């Protein structure tokens, strides 16, 4: 690729020069890069807050912050990580970068709407940050905004809830765009059976974004109205029902878990075939299990509420349905592992992250079984076991999938490769630190430590100290990973079209891809997405 040392693809080609060329760009890749930048920045903020939470818990009693600060810290950590990092992470950042290229399109169906969606995201994020520093102080409700506490606290819940509303609106617009794009803009020959699995998972995710997100919108609006007008729709003294809030909240927020994890599964389904040089095992099972998870995921919200005072009959039904959702997830794990069978496996950094994903997700999923069963959930609910469990799924799953995607696709979009040895060191520290931290949290939860405690009884001290030490290893791993990726992007070795020997359409265009992706002629697809015959990896 010597002739292209100055080639920079979409990074330079733009109707407008400079910063406006980015802020007013409707190019899906530029919007994707803007999302990625914001998401990673907010992730770093959230991670620092997370480390502060762990540091506070290094010993019983007050160590580095008081109770109010602690409550605000875990609330802001939750709001940032859920609404501003995980939900938009893979769908909005990598979905935007990849979806059109992978289906052979030049852009999404509604490029202007796509930009608007990014602005909604930014406005939401800015409002949330203003909420921390203004009014009655940073919100202290937890990211769940449970009533009646959220309607009574004097902290700045109104603005934070409105910020979450804006972020939800951004998510809806992205969802609408993706569903339409996948239906309307597939190139010639790109049948449903030839869609890369990442696209399938984005498709399932986009439907959840469209059909579930409005529910959190109206719920948060009602919390604001409750605070402003004192309406009492969730206030038992005025005829309301506080448990109904939890229903409305989880009707969205449980499917939201799948918004966070499904695209991650899609990423893993792309990476594993590439580094095993084998087609993904059970393509249709994988495709349909994504749709199955998306659908069944909207049937199980009340499994967050077994101890809430909900009816026992509802516990019965929701517990049953919860176990049904476990099955498509299990199928995915088995299919990924079967893909490895008799493959030609290369342990490149993306593959390491992908395998770590499977391990972490398996632990998270299996821990979910104990939470899905009614009797055992009664003990584990609202303890640190839950905190450990959802970090296994969200961070060990969604987060690791994002890191896998960054190691896999950033060379494509920057045209440069990072240092592999350093990447492996970062991965190892992250993986070990992660498991030490969250496995210990699960243990301390089984022992009975409730969540959202800034102070705890002395009997929980040892395990908390181990978890805190683990968080430092994890922090170091993250630091090494980010620095390595950054240096790779700025000054790494240049790569050609297809450094990994992968098969989907994005690897057939130059790195980085040009504006409108495919030059003069639209691509024509003639084979399935994971046909490795004759595909050779470029040297780098």
């Amino acid at each position, binding site marked *: 690729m010597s002739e292209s040392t100055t080639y920079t693809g979409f990074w330079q080609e733009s109707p407008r020069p400079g910063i406006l060329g980015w802020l007013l760009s409707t190019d899906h890749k530029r919007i994707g890069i803007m999302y990625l930048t914001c998401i990673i920045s907010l992730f770093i903020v959230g991670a620092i807050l997370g480390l502060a939470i762990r540091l506070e818990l290094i010993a019983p009693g007050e160590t580095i912050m008081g109770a109010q600060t602690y409550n605000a810290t875990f609330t802001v950590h939750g709001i940032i990580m859920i609404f501003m990092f995980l939900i938009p992470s893979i769908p909005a950042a990598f979905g935007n970068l990849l979806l059109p290229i992978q289906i052979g399109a030049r852009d999404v169906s509604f490029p202007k709407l796509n930009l608007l969606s990014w602005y909604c995201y930014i406005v939401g994020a800015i409002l949330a940050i203003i909420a921390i520093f203004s009014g009655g102080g940073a919100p202290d409700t937890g990211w769940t905004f449970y009533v009646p506490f959220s309607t009574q606290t004097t902290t700045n819940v109104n603005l934070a809830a409105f910020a979450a509303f804006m972020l939800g609106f951004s998510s809806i617009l992205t969802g609408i765009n993706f569903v339409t794009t996948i*239906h*309307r*803009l*597939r190139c010639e020959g790109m049948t449903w059976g030839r869609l890369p699995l990442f696209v399938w998972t984005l498709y399932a995710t986009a*439907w959840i974004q469209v*059909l*579930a997100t409005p*529910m959190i919108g109206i719920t948060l609006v009602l919390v604001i109205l409750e605070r402003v007008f004192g309406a009492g729709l969730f206030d038992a003294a005025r005829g309301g*029902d506080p*448990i*109904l809030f939890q*229903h409305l909240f989880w*009707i969205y927020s449980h499917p939201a878990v799948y918004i966070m994890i499904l695209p991650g599964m899609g990423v893993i389904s792309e990476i594993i075939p590439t580094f095993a040089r084998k087609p993904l095992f059970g393509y249709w099972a994988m495709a349909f299990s994504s749709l199955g998870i998306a659908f069944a995921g*909207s*049937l199980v919200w*009340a499994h967050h*509420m077994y101890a809430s*005072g*909900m*009816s*026992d*009959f*509802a516990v019965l*039904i*929701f517990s049953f349905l919860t176990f049904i959702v476990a099955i498509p997830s299990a199928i995915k794990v088995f299919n990924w592992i079967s893909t490895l069978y008799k493959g030609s496996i290369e342990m490149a950094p993306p593959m390491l992250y992908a395998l770590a994903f499977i391990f972490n997700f398996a632990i998270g999923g299996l821990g979910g079984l104990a939470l899905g069963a009614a009797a055992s959930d009664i003990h584990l609910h609202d303890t640190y076991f839950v905190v450990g469990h959802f970090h296994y799924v969200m961070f060990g799953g969604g987060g690791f999938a994002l890191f896998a995607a960054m190691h896999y696709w950033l060379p494509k979009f920057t045209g440069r490769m990072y240092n592999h040895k350093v990447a492996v060191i970062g991965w190892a520290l992250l993986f070990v630190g992660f498991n030490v931290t969250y496995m210990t949290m699960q243990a301390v939860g089984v022992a009975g430590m409730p969540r959202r405690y800034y102070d705890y009884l002395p009997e929980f001290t040892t395990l908390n100290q181990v978890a805190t030490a683990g968080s430092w290893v994890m922090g170091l791993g993250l630091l090494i990973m980010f620095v390595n990726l950054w240096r790779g992007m700025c000054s790494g070795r240049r790569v050609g079209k297809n450094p990994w020997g992968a098969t989907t359409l994005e690897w057939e265009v130059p790195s980085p891809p040009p504006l409108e992706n495919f030059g003069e002629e639209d691509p024509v697809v003639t084979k399935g997405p994971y046909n490795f015959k004759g595909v050779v990896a470029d040297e780098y």
Partner: protein
Amino acid sequence: MSEETHVPVPYRTFILIWVALLILTGITVAVSRVDVGALNIWVALGVASIKSSLVIFFFMHLKQESILFKIGLLTMLVILAIFVGMTFLDILYR
């Protein structure tokens, strides 16, 4: 990527639908004056569903749209029914 162009719907059809909607509105009001117990709310919802079907299929041209639009609407309605119905599992048995 097929482009479906619609034949314009004649004014007459729309006006007929409008008359039907007005008649159905009258029926809703009339039925609400008769006491049939818990059935009232179901009759009201039933008539409202018929009215909305007319609006969706004719005014909103769903009749002319491809199967994709219809499946999409069905999906949304199924999810909606799940949200409402399964919340009742708690409220009615508490």
